[in-house]
């Protein structure tokens, strides 16, 4: 699949269902009531996969929505991060919640453990700004 998706492919669920799989690899077309009743579908199946988010990002880009596309790509990275960790990172990004070192550690972990360089960059950037605006946690906390 080398061609880039564009507005003609939207909505993927209608125009390109062939491209859609759940995070467990089930094709979207297999997500049916019969499969649900048979117990073949779990809640895990009803999530978006990183590949799908990348495709949606291509569509956003194609219609001139750069920031939305970037968000889709950050989101693709975060699909691998567990719920609790996502919430913990969010809380760490609140004003005066984290030291510079803690933010750096989060960025490193995003990069090395979760292969999430874009999210890591966002966290690193926040550390710069927080330092300049006195929004890091006071020393020793």
């Amino acid at each position: 699949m080398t061609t880039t998706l564009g507005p003609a492919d939207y909505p993927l669920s209608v125009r390109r269902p062939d491209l859609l799989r759940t995070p467990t690899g089930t094709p979207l077309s297999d997500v049916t009531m019969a499969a649900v009743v048979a117990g073949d579908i779990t809640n895990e199946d009803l999530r978006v996969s990183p590949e799908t988010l990348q495709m949606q990002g291509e569509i956003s880009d194609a219609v001139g929505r750069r920031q939305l596309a970037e968000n889709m790509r950050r989101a693709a990275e975060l699909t691998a991060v567990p719920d609790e960790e996502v919430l913990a990172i969010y809380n760490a990004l609140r004003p005066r919640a984290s030291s510079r070192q803690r933010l750096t550690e989060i960025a490193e972990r995003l990069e090395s453990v979760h292969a999430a360089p874009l999210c890591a960059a966002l966290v690193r950037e926040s550390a710069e700004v927080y330092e300049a605006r006195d929004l890091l946690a006071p020393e020793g906390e």
Partner: protein
Amino acid sequence: MTSTLPSSGAAAGPRTSKRTEMLESRPVNLDGFVEEWPEKGLVAMESDFDPAPSIRVENGVIVELDGRPRAEFDFMDTFIADHAIDVDVAERANAVPSDEIARMLVNPTVGRGEVLDLTRGLTPAKLLDVVKLMNVVEIMMAMQKMRARRMPANQAHSTSARDNPIQVAADAAEGALRGFAELETTLGVLRYAPLVAIGLQIGAQAGRGGVITQCALEEATELDLGMRGITGYAETISVYGTESVFVDGDDTPWSKAFLASAYASRGIKMRFTSGTGSEVQMGNAEGRSMLYLEIRCILMAKGAGVQGLQNGSISCIGVPGAVPGGIRAVAAENLVCNMLDLECAAGNDQSFSHSAMRRTSRLMPQMLPGQDLVCSGFSAVPNSDNMFAGSNLDVEDYDDWNTVQRDLQVDGGLRHVRSEEILAVRNRAARALQAVFAELDLPRITDDEVEAATYADSSADYPLREVLEDLKGAQSVMDRGVTGLDLVKILERTGFSDIAENYLQVLRQRVSGDLLQTSAILDADFVPQAAINDANDYAGPGTGYRLTGERWAELKRLRHVTSAENPEEEVS
């Protein structure tokens, strides 16, 4: 409608006329009005204290923004400069005279895309400079072209003063049937959330498959309910226009941007919320006008990559509503949201005035040109049951709204529905919820409650529930990890296959991610309609969204219309 009449000072003052007495007693005089105080930001959109537009780019980086050098940027400036403004067009776009951009906005021969190519590079002060040139009719004309989705839609609140999940379900079903594309709820007692969110979802799918739902809560629980598939989207992620107010709210543009990615990573549609007046209300407007600060919010949302924004003053509407030109500024903030290519859920969602005339006039700038969501939302319960502290419109206004749509031939997203159809979906929603509660071992919903839900108006019409038992049940829903998929299975098993199928279709959207695109909603065939496949293509008279055909025929119906064929009968 209110507690106190204004003191007229009539007791000892000079004699007044009967006319003055009559006017004094008009509801509009129960509203509060204040003088402007621009030094403190108590001014709608025209202030000498707002900065003049300027921009300077060096090596692809914005080094000056609206008169402020990069070294002096606060975090809003930094975020907007680094994320929101498209640097490649910035200097060129800002060099275009404001009146020229304003004229492009109202000129039907200039396409939406052409305008967007400029607006994506504009600074906050430049955007303000442009909309300041426009009167309210020009703002509406621009809105008609610039809003992202072609077909307008509407959103409702479905809440209960007693957090009664059966009421929420029945009113959600009725709201969905009447045409709302999105339904939102919140709680008095937060621990009720799981049951009320389940009621909202099941009610919505019983009313019209594909309506999406949300439950306004603190971030962690809201995200949790979304991840379980009990709710379908999120909206109450507040952002503010000054650094100090943002920090007071315990957030920053970076924390909110991260949250936006978090929602998208779970396939959940999300928009931010902001609005004029919030900063001055908290005393930290930094001497800027309300609209200037709101434009910073809109740019921040854009920079975060969130697909849309709820704005239109929202819970601070009393502030712009009290200053000169305030409602024009509210319309302008919706327009700027459109100009930045974001989905706009356009307010009209908070108790605004004692005067019916003012309530209507406040609504016109969004209702006439259309918006992605004209209200965010319309109270689909009596305002006494509205846990968002009341809306500009509530169930009492249903017939008025439908009549205005018919009078002016505009589509406000609703329609008249015959009573027996409404009773049928209310009953079915309540029965479905009854079955789900029974299967989940939640406190029983009695047949009396189902009966009450079918015919009720407000929470007072329902039997009281055992609140403690319900709260225990709500906790067990969270503890047991009940998901939307579990609810689908139960609905299927208990004979509500159609609702189950509708619900499953909504859950499937999370796999496709289609609802993450700008202005996406689901139509009755579960086809996502976004500002891509249903992009606004307005190009002057005869183009864009037109109320015609079947939809127009539908909106011609009202509760009482005399039959032309037999004037002794009514059609409805």
